[in-house]
C-alpha cells in the first residue's frame, strides 16, 4: 500500500503525517508513507487544499487533519 501525505510543510501537514504513521505502526499494516511537499506534484493529483491523504492514488481526504479512526477505516 502506498500512502501519500500531501502538504507544503505547515504544522497541520506534519500532524496528518504523524497520525498516519501512528496508525500504521499500531495496526502493523504493510504500507509505505510518503510525504509530498512539492506543489507541482500535489497539483498533479488534483489536490488543492492541504493537508491531504492519498492512498494508492485515491484521494481520501483534503483540507483537514484526519482522525485516527478515519485513517484506520481507510487502511482496512
Amino acid at each position, binding site marked *: 500500500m502506498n500512502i501519500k501525505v500531501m*502538504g*507544503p*510543510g*505547515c504544522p*497541520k*501537514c506534519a500532524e496528518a503525517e504523524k497520525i498516519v504513521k501512528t496508525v500504521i505502526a499500531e495496526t502493523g499494516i504493510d504500507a509505505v508513507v510518503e510525504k509530498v511537499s512539492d*506543489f*507541482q506534484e*500535489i*497539483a*498533479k*493529483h*488534483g*489536490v*488543492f*487544499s*492541504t493537508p491531504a491523504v492519498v492512498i494508492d492514488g485515491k*484521494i*481520501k*481526504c*483534503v*483540507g*483537514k487533519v*484526519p*482522525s485516527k*479512526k*478515519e485513517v*484506520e*477505516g*481507510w487502511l*482496512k
Partner: protein
Amino acid sequence: MENIQKDIGSLIEQPACCSGGKKESKGKPRSTSTQIILGLLGIGVWYTVYYQLEPLSRYLTYDLIGLGKDSHLGASIQFFLYDTPKVMMLLTLVVYGVGIIRSFFTPERTRKFLAGKRESTGNVMAALLGIVTPFCSCSAVPLFLGFVTAGVPLGVTFSFLISAPMVNEIALVLLYGLLGWKVAALYLVTGLLVAIVAGWVIGRLGMERHMEDWVQELRANADVMPDENLTWSDRLKHGLDAVKDIVGKVWIYVVAGIAVGAGIHGFVPENFMASIMGKGAWWSVPAAVVVGIPMYSNAAGIVPVIHALLEKGAALGTVLAFMMSVIALSLPEMVILRKVLKPRLIGTFIGVVGCGILLVGYLFNIII
C-alpha cells in the same frame, strides 16, 4: 492570518472512508430539539455574563484590589480585566457561528461555483466567498492552482486570495469588540473593496502568462472529492471543532495583544502618536503600508495594538492601512506564491493591493 483550516469536512459520513464514522453510535444521541434548547440556554447565559463584565472588572480593580481610579496601573489593569474576557467571549460565539456556516462552504464548492463566473461578478463573489471559505495561508498555493486550473479567471482568483486572509471573522470580532461596530463595518467594506478592485485590475492586466510555465500546462483533475452530506448535528460539531481549533490557537495572541494595549492605555500619554501617525503626517500612510509588508501577524495579534495606537492619537486611516498591509501583504506568503508566479506578477500583486490600501488610508484620514 493563520486561519482556519479546520475543514469541516468531513468525509466522516462517507461510508467508504471511515469505519468509526457513525458519530451517533458513540456518545449520547441528542435530538435536534434538545440541541436547540441547549443552544438557546447557552446564548442566554452568554448574554448575561457578557453584560456583567464591565462592572465586574471595575469592582475587581478598584474595590477588591483597591487601586485608585486615576492611577495608571488601575487604568491598565481594569482595561485588561475587561477587554480580555470580553474579546474571548465574542470570539468564541462568532467562531462557533462561522464554524457552522463554513460547513456549507468547502474550498471545493467555492471553486466549482466560481469556475462559471464572468470577471466583474466573479470578483465580487470571490471576495465575499473569501470571508466564509476556510483558508489557511499554507494552503494558498494549492488553492491558487486549484482555482486557476478549474477555469476560475486569474483576477477572480486574486480577489479570493486577498479577501480570504484579510477579511475574516477574527479580525471583525476583534475590531467590533475593541473599536466598535463602525470601525468593524468600515474594515469589512473597504477590505472587500480592495479585494474586488485589486483582483479586477489584475485580471484586466492580462497577466496569465506570468504564471510559472508548468502552472499553465496543468489541467484540472476536477471533482475528485464527492460532496459530503452533513446532518445538522455534524454542522454543530464543526462549530465546536472550530472553537477548539481557532480559539485554542489565537487566545495567547489576544491576551498578549491586550496586555500590550493595556500598558499603552495606562502609561503612554494622550496624543503621543498624533505627530507620527496622526492626520497631519501625510507620509504616515505609505510608511504604514511599507512597514506592514515584512511584518507578519494575524488579526488576533494586531488589533489590540491598533486599538492602543488609535487611543493615543493615531489617525484611523493610517491605522487601518497598517493593519491591512500586515495581514494581506506578507513576505512569507510572497515567498510561497513565488513558486507558482513569476516575479512580475508578484510585483504587480503587491503594487495593486498596496495602492488599494493606500487609497483606503487616505480616504479615511480625509473623511473622518
